[in-house]
Each structure stands twice: as C-alpha cells, then as structure tokens.
C-alpha cells in the first residue's frame, strides 16, 4: 500500500514538472537585436539579389512546382521587387519557410523580405519587430460547399454540419457566425487540414470552413473542383502582405511602392500588353509611374524605369491576380481584392 502511494506521489510530481517545462519556448527576444537591419538595403544592393522567404506548399500562393521552381501569387511579388531593384526578375533567392520559423527568419536577417500569406496583426507587428509594407490580398475565413446546394448565405445553411480544423480561431469565428444569426449547425473538428478536406469531400459534412485562400487551394487538389463553390461570406479579417524587419525603412519603402506601383498600373490601365503604348501616354500619372518624367524610382534609390521592369516581368496587380487566383488558377472571386474604383479595397497611395 505504501509503495503505491509513493508511486502516485511521484507521478504527480513528475506531472507537475513536465507541465512546468511545457511553457512555450523562449521568444526570440533573447537573440541579439538584428544589427543588419539598418544597412539591409545596401547589403541587398551589394549582393545583387534579394532573398525572399516564401511558402513552398500552398498552391496558387507559394509553391515549389514539379520543375523545381517557385511559383504563385506571393512569389510573383518577389520577382517584381527583384525586377524593380535589379532590372532582373530572376535576381531572387527563394527560401521556403514554415509558419513558426518565418518571423524569426526575418528578424535574424536570414531573409530580406517575407512574402508568405502572413496575416497583418497588431501582436505580430509589435512583438516580433517586423513591418508590413502593404496588403496584397484581403483574405478572410470563408465557407466552401458543393455547388449543387445552391447556397448563398448562412441562412441557407440552417442545420448543416460544418467541418473545420481545430486549434485555430476558425472554430470560434464559425460559432459566432451561426450564433449571431440564431442558426443551428453541427461543427466537426479535425486535427489536420488534410483530414478535414477528406471528410468534407467524402460527404461527412455539408460544408468546410477555413481561410478562403486555403479553401481555394484545397479545392484545386480535389477530384472534381468544379463541383464546389466558395460562398461569398466572410467570417474574419486576414489581410496578407509582404513584410520586412523592423528598422530598415528604406528597404520597406521599396517593397511597399513596388506593390502600390503594380496597383496603380492596373488602375491606370498599364499592363504587360499595353506597356509599349503607355510609354507614349500623355497621362501625367502614367508618365511618372513609368519614369518617363519625374524621379520616382530614383528617390526610392532604385533605377527610374523600375515599373517598366516590373510590368515587363510579372504585369500589373490584376494580371498577377488573374494568373494565379483567377478562373484558370484557384478561382477565387476578386471580391475585396478588386480595385477601389471597382468597389474593392485595393488602393495605391499616390505615385507623385
């Protein structure tokens, strides 16, 4: 009897110990502050190429294709920045990073810019000492359902079983969406995204919820992608965009103006097709953007024909969107990612 009670006591002690040690790993604050930040832009210019942290596993955004090349929406922005700075879209070294290692990789100077479907949040912006440059994609939690259901809104989904992956804010947003409308539903939570998708495809649930970009990527891997639609409902804010380490403002300026330049190009009708005609344009905005007049590029510290190189390499914002996320790609309706002039949120600061 005595031996057993000792076993129990020692088990409890061991349990408490393990629990205490399960405290999260030390944050990166113990690492020395990145000394490279201030001189990052000069380092990049000296190196002759940019090091771009990206995703290797998200088709449509950042993906290592069977030919061994990185491709996708996010990857095109890496190319655009390289084209603007060096006049060569191939002056990029891609570094695939996972979700937990992406911010430390940027802080420690392992990568120059991170373009990997990273949501802009206050906590990350402050706690990790990084700076977002711009928003390239307004994502949000969405809902995917078979097209045959004909669903448009949450109200159509009364009584539905919804599959989701556990351990994220997804399930809370889901609960809020249905509760606030007084609707009945059944959640079914899986541990892994792939299992969630399988269960949905097998018909265990009527719908699946996740970020819209993720849903689109999962759909593209399905047997019959055309049978499934992503409903036009949004349950959360997930603005994605490129970010640089805190402190190197000049470099951050280059990244953000390349993005905004591509947006302005779409707004002004400058595309890879119309580029040569547009170089003759009388529109002062277009002339400034393409470096025909003014010193926009030079003031950023890069060649004055920066946007000409960008448009030639990847096209304007709309072209990049259509290439990867349009009907031929992941087929995500532009929705909030439409230009502000068309009722969307994509808006460039004034290029002047």
């Amino acid at each position: 009897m005595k031996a057993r009670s000792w076993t129990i006591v020692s088990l409890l002690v061991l349990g408490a110990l393990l629990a205490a040690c399960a405290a999260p790993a030390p944050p990166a604050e113990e690492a020395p502050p990145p000394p490279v930040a201030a001189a990052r832009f000069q380092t990049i210019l000296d190196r002759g190429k940019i090091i771009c942290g990206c995703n290797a596993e998200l088709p449509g955004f950042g993906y290592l294709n069977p030919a061994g090349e990185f491709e996708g929406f996010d990857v095109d922005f890496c190319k655009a920045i390289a084209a603007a700075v060096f006049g060569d879209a191939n002056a990029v070294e891609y570094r695939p990073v996972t979700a937990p290692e992406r911010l430390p990789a940027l802080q420690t100077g392992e990568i120059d810019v991170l373009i990997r479907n990273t949501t802009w949040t206050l906590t990350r912006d402050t706690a990790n000492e990084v700076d977002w440059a711009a928003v390239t994609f307004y994502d949000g939690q969405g809902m995917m359902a078979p097209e045959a259901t004909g669903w448009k809104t949450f109200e159509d989904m009364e009584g539905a079983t919804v599959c989701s992956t556990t351990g994220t804010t997804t399930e809370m947003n889901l609960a809020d969406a249905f509760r606030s409308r007084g609707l009945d539903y059944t959640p079914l939570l899986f541990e892994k995204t792939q299992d969630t998708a399988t269960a949905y495809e097998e018909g265990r649930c009527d719908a699946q919820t996740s970020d819209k970009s993720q849903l689109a990527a999962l759909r593209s891997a399905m047997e019959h992608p055309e049978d499934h639609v992503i409903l036009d409902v949004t349950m959360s804010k997930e603005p994605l965009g490129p970010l640089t380490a805190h402190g190197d403002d000049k470099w951050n300026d280059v990244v953000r103006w390349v993005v905004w330049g591509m947006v302005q190009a779409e707004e002004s009708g400058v595309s890879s097709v119309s580029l040569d005609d547009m170089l003759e344009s009388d529109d002062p905005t277009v002339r400034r953007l393409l470096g025909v007049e003014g010193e926009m590029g030079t003031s950023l510290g890069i060649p004055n024909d920066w946007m000409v190189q960008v448009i030639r390499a990847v096209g304007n914002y709309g072209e990049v969107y259509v290439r990867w996320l349009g009907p031929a790609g992941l087929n995500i309706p532009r929705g909030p990612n439409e230009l502000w002039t068309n009722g969307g949120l994509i808006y460039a600061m004034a290029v002047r």
Partner: protein
Amino acid sequence: MSAIAVARQRTLRVLRDERFLRALGQAVFAIAVVLFVAWCLSNYRDRGLTFTFRFLREEASFDLAEGMAFSPVDPYWKAFIVGLLNTIKVAFFGIIMATILGTVTGVARLSRNWLISNIAGVYIEIIRNTPVLVQLFFLYFAVILKFPSLEDRIVLPGPIFISIRGINLTWPRPTESFAYWLPFLIGAVIVAVGIYAWRVLLERRTRRPVSRLPWTFIALAVPLLGWFLVPGNPLYPDRPAVEGLKVVGGTSLSPEFAAILFGLVIYTAAFIAEVVRAGIMAVPRGQTEAARAQGFTEMQILQLVILPQALRIIIPPLISQYLNLTKNSSLAIAIAFLDLYAVSSTMLNQSGRVVEVFLMIMAAYLSMSLTISVLMNYVNRRLAPVER
C-alpha cells in the same frame, strides 16, 4: 606509515563504503531534482506567466456537438466535463465490448476446430502487429466515410437509418404517464431480488442445484401489468426523421464515436484474447482431462473448471489492457471525436493556458486509470483462491 598515508587510506575507505555511496547518490539526485524544478519555475516566471484556473469560468465561445448539450456561452469547465464524459463513455463501453470479444477470440484460438482457431489467429496477429492509429484512420476514412449519404441512407425496420451521418435509431421516450409507471419498474426490481433470494434459500434447504436467474424473469410481469393499468402509454417510440440537412428524433450514434469505439475494441480485444489464451493454457491439462472423464460437457468444462482457475491469471494483465484502452482513447482527436484530449486542446488554444490545461488533462487520465486499477484489484482479491 606516515600521517598522510593514513588519512588517504581513511578517505579511500569512506569512498568505497557502500552506505556512503548510496547516501551520496541520493543526495546528488535530490539536488538535481531541486535544481530542475527551480529552473522550470524560473523559466515560468521569466516568461511572465501566471498560474491561474480563473479562465475556467470564462465563456468558451466554441461549439461542441458530441455528448452533453453545450453552447458557446457555456464556461470552459463545462467543456472539459463534456470531453471527460465522452472519454468515460468510450472507455466504459469499450472495456465491456473488448472483454467479451477478447474472451470469445481467446477461447476460439484454442478451439480444436482448425478453421475457428485459425480465423482467430489471423485476426489476433494482424491487429496486434499494426499501429492502432493506422487502424483508426482506416476504419474511419476507408470504411465509415464510405457509407451512403443521408439522402441514400440505408433504412432498416424500426426505423433505423444508417448513413455517413451516423446511425439513427428509434428510441423509447417517457410520456406524462411515465411517473405512474415508475413504481411498477421499481416493484419489478424488488420482486426479482425476492425471487432470487428464495431460489438461493431453496438450494440450501434441498442441497440440490436449482436454476436461479431464469426464474427472476417472472418479475417482468409486474411492469407488463402496470403498462395496462396506467392511463395512456408510459413510453412512446421516438422515431428518427430527416428534416432538412439533419436527422431529428430518435437517438443517434455518430460516425466518430462508432469509429473510436469499434477501433479500440477491435485493437484491445486482440490483446485480451492473448491474455485469455495464456490464462487458459496455464491451467494444468489434468484438470480438463479429469472433468472430461467425469462426463462434463465441453461448455461445462470451460465454465466450471477452466475459466474460474484461469481468471486469477488473466486479471492482472487484463487491468493493463483496460488502462491502455482508456489512454488510447486520446487518439480520438485524429478522427474528430470530441474526447477529453480533443476538447482540452481546443480549450488550450483558445485560452492560452497551456500548463493549467495540461495539468487538468493529466489529472483526469490519472484518476481514470487509478479508478480502474482500484476496481480491478478489488475484483482480483475477491477471486483469489481460498487456500486450503
């Protein structure tokens, strides 16, 4: 001999003294443990972490669709209870079913019928030698998720619906007159106990074996009589029906619960079968032969001679199989069943209270395991042979 040499000799003697070495070893270990705890605590403090269970009273704001009714406005502690009850449900039914299946398989393995013995052998070897997680995935994704959709459901008389959304059965539910019928149910239990006691007394008086259990079924007449005496029907059949996207009415067995329950039963039963086989084989062959010589049937030999003796050998390893089944139920998270671990990991993610939630998980599993151990050790002691 110089003074230095003497001192050195003395030191050596102390260093080689077993008692000293033991004490030293324990001291070093104790210091290491204390340092380790201090290190963990200081890490904990350095991270600015606080230790509090106050979050348990906060609103959980997520939904749980399995087991006890739960809504997003309920507090965290209630979510924990939902998960705990779901785990207990799996463990309870799992242990009962695995014991039955395991015993049958173990006996079948020893059968003199070639086919029966080999079927049992193949089952045991395949199941014991593949990982349980793989089996669960197979059962859930490759078997259960291949069932027809709710629209094309299989309808058995009852009605019973079988589809990818689970099994829905007709279930008796009490009506208003159930209250009048309840005394008859209690009466039936009392009558049954009375009959049993009477049969036991009769056996003692006549010193001849009499059947007892079958007689207690006479007690069933009481609630049957009551059924006609009370106004209206005390129970009505609640039939399942499809309404929109879901089934309403009746009672249901979710595909996830079915997968974790059957998966664990099939897995654990293979181990229990081996335990049972070993137990039976440990009973000396002479016992069987003696019983056979006295004209016992094979069934009687098993029931009256072998199993009572084998049980003593079987129970201790059986306890660890029960504990395994209970702990393996934490794999349920992989197939979306909301067991204790699945609910807790959601709690942990939403509240950020890693240490507190893990302590709760460990305490819950530990108390379940200890409860099973205590109960089974009690059974074991009751079955210990009366030494003569």
